[in-house]
């Protein structure tokens, strides 16, 4: 059940000697969240994240990059407590959510509350086997929203926000699963947007998409950061460079370097980041 992939890590290890993480830089933007000495253990005892500390700036895009198995998806999924779905997973440390300074991963906090505030878009588009309209309205329905005109308005806003409105406005009652892959992914984004989340998590949202759909989703992400804080896991460094304001490079469960995207991609301070970015491993 665990999504961890450790298979590629040993290969990377052999090509790379010991490494020392560079502490995350301080940033000037207002914070939406901050990760402090965060550790994560899977149910099988695997220590997937080790002492991660980094800030998340509000209304910015933060990209998590790194080779497969580095823990970037694990970190992302911690933000809305997806790990709670599987038994025996364990969080240690804290992820503080601003402005009220609560610990996202604290046991006293209801994961459902977190997920209502922190939405997620998955790697593979996963629309529900329902109509397009009901897909987008799902979050509202989950919140018990019964005012039809309000729901209609939110669905339209969300679909416009996800740049999908023009394509589907005439077939809102068609099944969401009948759309193309790119449209499905934008539908999932609309679904996440409809409930007005504070943070939007993207887990390699373009991994399963063709280049044209990818471009559309990227444009969308840049557009969305005006209203929502975004954290995105990406496998594609260029994508990170194109859309992220801040970038975190992770390796083997540790945060190697966190800085402004420009800085990371032009003058990384950790030699390992440089090696990864220049394609020498990963």
């Amino acid at each position, binding site marked *: 059940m665990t999504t961890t992939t450790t298979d590629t890590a040993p290969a990377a290890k052999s090509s790379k000697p010991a490494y020392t993480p560079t502490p995350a830089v301080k940033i000037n933007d207002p914070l939406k969240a901050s990760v402090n000495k965060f550790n994560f253990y899977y149910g099988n005892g695997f220590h997937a994240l080790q002492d991660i500390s980094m800030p998340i700036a509000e209304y910015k895009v933060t990209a998590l990059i790194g080779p497969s198995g580095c823990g970037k998806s694990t970190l992302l999924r911690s933000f809305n407590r997806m790990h709670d779905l599987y038994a025996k997973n364990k969080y240690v440390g804290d992820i503080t959510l601003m402005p009220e300074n609560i610990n996202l991963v604290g046991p006293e906090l209801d994961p*459902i509350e977190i*997920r209502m505030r922190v939405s997620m878009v*998955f790697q593979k588009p996963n629309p529900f086997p329902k109509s397009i309209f009901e897909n987008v309205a*799902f979050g509202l329905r*989950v919140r018990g929203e019964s005012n039809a005109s309000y729901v209609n308005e939110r669905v339209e806003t969300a679909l416009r926000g996800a740049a999908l409105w023009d394509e589907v406005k005439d077939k809102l009652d068609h099944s969401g699963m009948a759309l193309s892959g790119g449209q499905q992914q934008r539908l999932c984004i609309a679904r996440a947007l409809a*409930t007005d989340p504070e943070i939007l998590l993207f887990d390699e949202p373009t991994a399963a998409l063709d280049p044209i759909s990818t471009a559309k989703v990227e444009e969308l992400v840049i557009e969305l950061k005006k209203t929502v804080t975004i954290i995105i896991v990406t496998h594609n460094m260029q994508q990170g460079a194109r859309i992220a304001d801040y970038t975190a490079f992770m390796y083997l469960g540790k945060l190697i370097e966190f800085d402004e995207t420009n800085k990371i991609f032009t003058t990384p301070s950790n030699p390992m980041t440089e090696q990864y970015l220049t394609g020498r491993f990963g």
Partner: protein
Amino acid sequence: MTTMNPGVAENPAPFLDLTRSGSSKASRVKETIIEGILLLAGVSSVIITIGIVIVLLRETIPFFAKQVEEIALPAMHADGPYTVSAIHKKPGDTLNKRDVLLEITAANGEVTKVVTHFDGVVRNINATVGEVIDAAKFSTSDQIRLLSAAEQRETEVQARIPLADVTWSVGFVDFFGDTQWTPAFADKRFGIWALIAGTVVTTLVAIFVAVPVGTISAIWLSEYCNASFREIIKPILELLSAVPTVVYGYFALLAITPVLQTIGGWFGIDVPGFNMLSAGLVMGVMIIPYVASLSEDAMRSVPMQLREGSYAMGATRVQTATKVILPAAFSGVTAAYILGIARAIGETMIVAIAAGQMPNFTANPKEGGQTLTAFIVGMSKGDTPHDSLEYRTIFVCGLVLLIMTLFFNVTGYMIRKRYREAY
């Protein structure tokens, strides 16, 4: 294998014993024989199916064919001397239901009208006007016919004095256009709806129990229960359908019915000792595992991504289960329901024991009734002669039952197959 053997034969290596190629030929023959035997076993299911259809049709076709019925002096009159006082029909005349065939007068002047209970044609009349019938002279062994009451194993000997032969047939209108089912009575009626009503009512009661309980149990097992507990609880739940149905019949008749009668008593409702409600309720419990197990399989085969998508939106487990998992597993769950229905339609012992043996065209589960299956069992318990119309009715009912269950089974199978391909 066949590609290897020529290679062996061509190989000139001296250590190769020639007899080995001979033995491999023998083994090839053996292989073919074995394959033939296995093929036969594999095809056996088709032969069995054809066998079922042939056996059922072999009795169903004569059931609807023209038959000769002997009109006899009613058994209760078989004592004293009677005089045939009037004959109203002659051979070749058509008869309608309740037509008077002839009249007989007893010594005390009492007139009995001999009427027919079906539409037919008079074949021949074995009596003449003025003829005196003395029952005593007919009471030799070759004139004795055994009549059996389906309820009792006891056989009564009664004299029947033939008066006329009439040809008639059970028409499709009699079969599908009537709501009375009385094949063992003098006034034979073959309205299959009376039995279908019993089957439908008991099945509906069972489904009313099994669908909600089965579905909610399936959701709980698939979405709430942890894997190790599921490993334990699922086989235990499946034991519910392993209990012999005759035992469930006992339970329905002697435990559930008294409880229903007590509860009915509180509300002033009189619940009879045989009722379709208790049979249906217990049958429902019996098919819970079918519904729960198949539904749970369908729910668990819904991909994890959909669950994650729903939870990521802040949905609770109920919301995920009812709004995402259930619609996604819809076809599989439907198949589970349909297979459960088929199981309920075909169930025999519970209804035969607890619902009674009186065909009853009603939609009220509180009443007693007879299902297709219960009729077959009840009828075959008696000593029905193997070439009689009564005997054929059980095969006819079997055919109707087979068609009903086949419809549900094939539908369920197709739906299941489709959802298996979907994920």
